[in-house]
């Protein structure tokens, strides 16, 4: 079965350049990924999903019904969306009573959830195609020290996500390695970036971020690689905020892994929209050319 993109909210509405790099990367490795019309918010596993379980299931199931109708699997560009959709599928596929309740709600819009499609995070699909990526590398990112941040919802809860090692993840670092860069081994690799806490307490969210940045710095990092738009925002938007508050000088460029892969494949930087990053990426571009 082929894939359609599930874009979510943050990428199309705020960070479209991340989408550009993902589309170009999948094109380059010869994967045709379609577009799925009519999608809503996944819903956000850290936000609206916390307010009402039934609405969470119903909204997510509606999204899955759209893919079922298109006979297409989900290729998600966001870890939060991946976790929400995989969780909803897990619950509905394992709990008949809940599935019946949700299908009775979906009836109002003429839909019914069956459970016959699969959901994948884009980094999962990239990793499955790692040999193809390797063959396409034209400009290995030699000597570039990249701190990979796998994030939370790509991995956990492992019973639902069913991918990589939830406590000692490897796949992101393997992708960094295959494009010729050096994955940085740092202490807090598996910690949350702090983004979801911002809704409740910005201070705590920034302390969590600074702990990660400190750990990356100590390990000797040139730039950060992420695979989730919420993590991207936290790292790209809030380093300056931390510097303002604490008189520090964090200035790590932040990349989506597909941006780094695209660079290693020799793609045009302008078409990738790298100029839209808040933390300028010029130092990294110089280093790799």
């Amino acid at each position, binding site marked *: 079965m082929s894939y359609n993109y599930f874009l979510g909210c943050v990428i199309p509405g705020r960070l479209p*350049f991340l989408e550009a790099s993902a*589309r170009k990367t999948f094109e380059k490795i010869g994967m045709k990924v379609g577009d799925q019309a009519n999608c809503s918010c996944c819903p956000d596993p*850290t936000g*609206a999903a916390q307010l009402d379980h039934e609405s969470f299931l*119903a909204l997510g199931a509606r999204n899955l019904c759209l893919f079922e109708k298109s006979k297409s699997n989900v290729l998600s560009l966001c870890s939060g969306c991946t976790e929400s959709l995989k969780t909803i599928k897990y619950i509905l596929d394992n709990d008949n009573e809940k599935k019946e309740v949700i299908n009775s709600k979906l009836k109002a819009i003429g839909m019914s959830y069956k459970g016959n499609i699969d959901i994948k995070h884009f980094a999962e699909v990239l990793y499955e195609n790692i040999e193809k990526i390797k063959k396409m590398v034209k400009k290995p990112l030699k000597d570039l020290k990249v701190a990979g941040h796998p994030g*939370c919802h790509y991995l956990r809860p492992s019973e639902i996500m069913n991918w990589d090692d939830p406590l000692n993840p490897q796949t992101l670092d393997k992708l960094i390695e295959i494009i010729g860069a050096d994955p940085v081994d740092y202490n807090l690799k598996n910690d949350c970036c702090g983004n979801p806490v911002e*809704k409740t307490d910005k201070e*705590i969210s920034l302390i*969590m971020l600074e702990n990660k940045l400190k750990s990356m710095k100590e390990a000797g990092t040139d730039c950060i690689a992420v695979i989730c738009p919420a993590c991207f925002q936290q790292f790209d938007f809030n380093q300056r905020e931390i510097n303002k508050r604490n008189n520090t000088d964090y200035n790590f460029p932040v990349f989506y892994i597909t941006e780094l892969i695209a660079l290693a494949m020799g793609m045009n930087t302008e078409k990738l929209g790298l100029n839209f990053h808040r933390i300028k990426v010029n130092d990294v571009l110089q280093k790799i050319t």
Partner: protein
Amino acid sequence: MQMVEFEFRNELIKEDFSLNYCYQCGTCSSSCPVALVTEGEYNPRKIIEQSLLGLKDLLIKDQKPNIWLCCTCQMCVEECPQNVFLTEIFERIKNRIVSEGEPYPETFKTQAISVIENGLAIPLTQPIIRRREQLELPKVESADINEIKKLLEATDFKKKIKILEVSK
């Protein structure tokens, strides 16, 4: 003084039976990044203890510890030796806070209103639409808002989260 409410406890257990398995070892709190930076003020073990004891007011009215600080990183779930699905239980408690009309962080409500009105947590703006064109990205065909409205009416979402009139 805190009242023990067995019914509340039993409802939580009915919603997620794994609550019963907790033996209060504290592995969850030692793996929690928010507990670490708040020096234990946010404490997942305590939330589970209070759930098992049926201390409803402490959890729902006083909101101590503040359950909205959970970063949903799922480390506690991963590390728990008893397979307690903590974040699922926390979600149910947050649902109760909301449906009983107790206060909760405004950002959650703002996001919910955006989903009700636009189908998306972050609606597309003109500058972003232009930027998408500049990047040669396809037009986003967002959700049919009437479908979203009908579906959320079927689940009684607005009523449950205490949004009576959504502004136009």
